[in-house]
């Protein structure tokens, strides 16, 4: 069975940016803290626009924050 999901490095990036809180990131990206929590946990895949906004907060390209993984399960 093939499982596809979007992973991200937001947690690590927050830590590297002066230990930015989820609340601060949410404010900068224009979403609620719950949405950031859900994205970090992998429970919610953001829209392309939100993914770009989050990447812009860290001054990175979208690929450096989000990646698309295909997992092969037997």
């Amino acid at each position, binding site marked *: 069975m093939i499982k596809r999901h979007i992973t991200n490095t937001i947690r690590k990036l927050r830590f590297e940016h002066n230990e930015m809180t989820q609340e601060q990131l949410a404010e900068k990206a*224009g*979403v*609620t*803290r*719950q*949405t950031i929590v*859900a994205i970090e*946990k992998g*429970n*919610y895949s*953001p*829209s392309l*626009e*939100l993914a770009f906004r989050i990447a812009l907060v860290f001054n990175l390209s979208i690929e450096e924050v989000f990646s698309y993984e295909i997992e092969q399960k037997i």
Partner: protein
Amino acid sequence: MSTGQKQNYISLVTTLLVSVPYFIFIFNKYQLEVLNISGELRFWSTAILLLIPIRIVSEIVMSIAGAVLQAIITGKEGKDLSDERDTLIELKSTRNAYFIFMFSFMAAILAVSQGHSVSVMFSILIISGFLSELFEIFSKIYYYKKGF
């Protein structure tokens, strides 16, 4: 817990506190009245039409009461910010509610086609409206908690 999530619990309490007593009142009133077919149609139409302003006013009152209570307990105002995830949750929950109501609507039509009275049809419609509303609220609570 975000303001959007709290709003679901407020809606749940409002639905249970307002709709259930109203339905009990309406069904009891119906038992006491002897009506012909046009009288029955008028009775149920009025009952549904009356429920709309009652629900709107009660939602507004409960939302204000909830916001005041939150401000008293936490000492700060709740931010009424909703984003794309809130919108998606809203849409998915509404879709789930429509599924319930769609099947109930078919059941109501089926009841009339099988020779049951219009009061049976309206009863099914009112109960299914209530159930679909509850299902919508529980869907939102589920999506907020588990994600999707």
